[in-house]
């Protein structure tokens, strides 16, 4: 093959104008929904969980919207763009493997803790389960740290999409992306949480499926896609790419140990993500019919990554490796722009505008849910626990002050040290969140033998492994990503079970109350 690939499309004023108008319209609707809900969220509890009256369609859509982050709607295409088919294992192919158990296993228990014990946050649930303030505070603190990392990706995703359609300098794109997020948060987009999230779930599903179908048609169908990829490099159409074995951070695409680790990561992450499982705290008492409807919604929403990974492959077939070095962008981020650039080529202004709104819907929904979780964690799970004299009104006020702070810190990070490939950053945090909270939350709902010491050991080990992974996997590229994921997951599980078995259990009456 020659190196004569088509240039990325040039942005024109129409893209900017229509894109900005569409984003403004989207923001106005979100803010309107926020205001409508704000009237009802006067108390601290209502602010965090709503009226516990949310139905199955909204709960299912909100779950999908918080799961489908900027990573799922943009970074995911960056992975398959760069790694070809072997990248699909990390590119959300296992999404339903995680979302389904989250709804089937964790969801009903979350709802029960919310209704029976008044739990309003995930650490709250943990505090009640283990009857331990310290465990609750530790869970809250570790969530804040890992969610902060994950939030960085939300800004980057919006900025990358904006970059593709405007061609502005990267810093300006980041500021624009951040401004949208701030307007959204400041005008109460988060107060309409479930409703706004549901709208965003619909938008991102439509946008991503539209682009997925258009991409496959554009490239000439499944066989033509593979033929074009194989002509570039045969590794692009394999299931794993052994040539990547020299790049430990890319083990997810290099061998079957890496692939196994991706499956475990996706299985644990939806169950373990506090901003995902928090969605179940606000739901009403479900009937069987409600539950079946919610599962159908999740099956549709959870299919979005399959469309997305095709988009990344189609972008590779069309642009070749050319996007890796786009001038004006931090190294590597051009790969993440694969989807918006392909949208421009295929569908011009209309398709890329639909996709742009989808990316912002995806990243804002995740960001807002995370910022809410982080601020709620600080007030309710740390301050509220150790300073019980603070009134609920004060706690609500502090939460509102913390929201912009928790939105600012990741922004600073995203500008100062943008990740080389969005997927790396996000999968790092996902490994930690999934490995820790799969045991501390999901398993603890069903295993009476779990103790607070087991939970704390699991949290400490998981956090230590995240710190080590940040250095050995992502910084000096010494540990294989898959080995690291497996060591984190297995280690968290081993400590959780072993420490629980040798430490004193909560009183029987307490357990009967929780499990009765």
């Amino acid at each position, binding site marked *: 093959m020659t190196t004569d690939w088509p240039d990325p499309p040039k942005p024109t004023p129409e893209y900017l104008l229509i894109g900005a108008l569409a984003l403004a319209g989207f923001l106005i609707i979100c803010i309107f929904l926020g205001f409508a809900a704000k009237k009802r969220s006067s108390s601290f509890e209502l602010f965090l969980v709503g009226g516990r009256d949310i139905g199955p369609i909204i709960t299912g859509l909100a779950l999908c919207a918080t799961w489908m982050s900027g990573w799922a709607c943009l970074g995911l295409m960056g992975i398959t763009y760069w790694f070809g*088919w072997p990248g*699909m294992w990390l590119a959300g192919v296992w999404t*339903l493997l995680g979302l389904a158990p989250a709804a089937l296993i964790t969801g009903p228990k979350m709802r029960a803790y919310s209704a029976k014990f008044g739990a309003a946050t995930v650490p709250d649930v943990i505090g009640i389960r283990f009857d331990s303030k310290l465990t609750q505070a530790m869970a809250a603190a570790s969530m804040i740290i890992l969610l902060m990392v994950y939030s960085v990706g939300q800004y980057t995703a919006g900025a990358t999409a904006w970059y593709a359609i405007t061609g502005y300098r990267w810093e300006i794109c980041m500021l624009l992306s951040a401004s949208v997020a701030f307007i959204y948060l400041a005008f109460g987009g988060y107060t309409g949480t479930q409703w706004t999230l549901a709208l965003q779930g619909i938008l991102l599903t439509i946008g991503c499926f539209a682009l997925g179908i258009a991409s496959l048609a554009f490239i000439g169908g*499944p066989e033509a896609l*593979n033929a074009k990829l194989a002509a570039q490099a045969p590794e692009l*159409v394999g299931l794993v790419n052994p040539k990547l074995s020299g790049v430990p951070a890319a083990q997810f695409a290099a061998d079957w140990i890496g692939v196994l680790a991706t499956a475990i990561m996706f299985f644990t992450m939806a169950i373990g993500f506090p901003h995902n499982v928090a969605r179940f705290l606000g739901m009403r008492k479900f009937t069987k019919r409600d539950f079946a409807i919610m*599962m159908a919604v999740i099956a549709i929403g*959870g299919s979005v990554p399959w469309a997305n990974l095709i988009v990344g492959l189609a972008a590779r077939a069309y642009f070749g490796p050319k996007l890796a070095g786009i001038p004006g962008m931090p190294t590597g981020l051009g790969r993440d722009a694969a989807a918006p650039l392909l949208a421009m080529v295929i569908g011009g202004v209309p398709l890329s505008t639909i996709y742009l709104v989808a990316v912002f819907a995806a990243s804002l929904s995740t960001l807002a849910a995370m910022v809410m979780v982080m601020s709620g964690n600080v007030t309710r799970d740390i301050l509220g626990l150790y300073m019980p004299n603070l009134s609920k009104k004060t706690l609500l006020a502090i939460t509102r002050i913390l929201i912009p702070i928790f939105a600012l810190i990741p922004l600073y990070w995203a500008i100062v040290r943008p990740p080389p490939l969005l997927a790396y950053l996000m999968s790092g945090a996902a490994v930690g969140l999934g490995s820790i909270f799969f045991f501390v939350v999901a398993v603890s709902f069903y295993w009476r033998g779990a103790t607070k010491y087991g939970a704390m050991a699991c949290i400490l080990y998981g956090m230590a492994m995240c710190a080590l992974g940040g250095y050995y996997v992502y910084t000096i590229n010494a540990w294989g990503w898959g080995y690291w994921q497996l060591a984190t997951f297995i280690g968290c599980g081993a400590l959780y079970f072993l420490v629980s078995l040798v430490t004193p259990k909560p009183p029987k009456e307490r357990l009967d109350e929780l499990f009765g």
Partner: protein
Amino acid sequence: MAEPSAWTALMAVVIGSLLLVLIGTWLRLRYWEE
């Protein structure tokens, strides 16, 4: 041994995932707890 094509692998994951949702939902409804 010929490696299955990437499309086949993707289809296997898609069908497997949808089956998981279907069977999981069925089991949950079968053993419904009020």
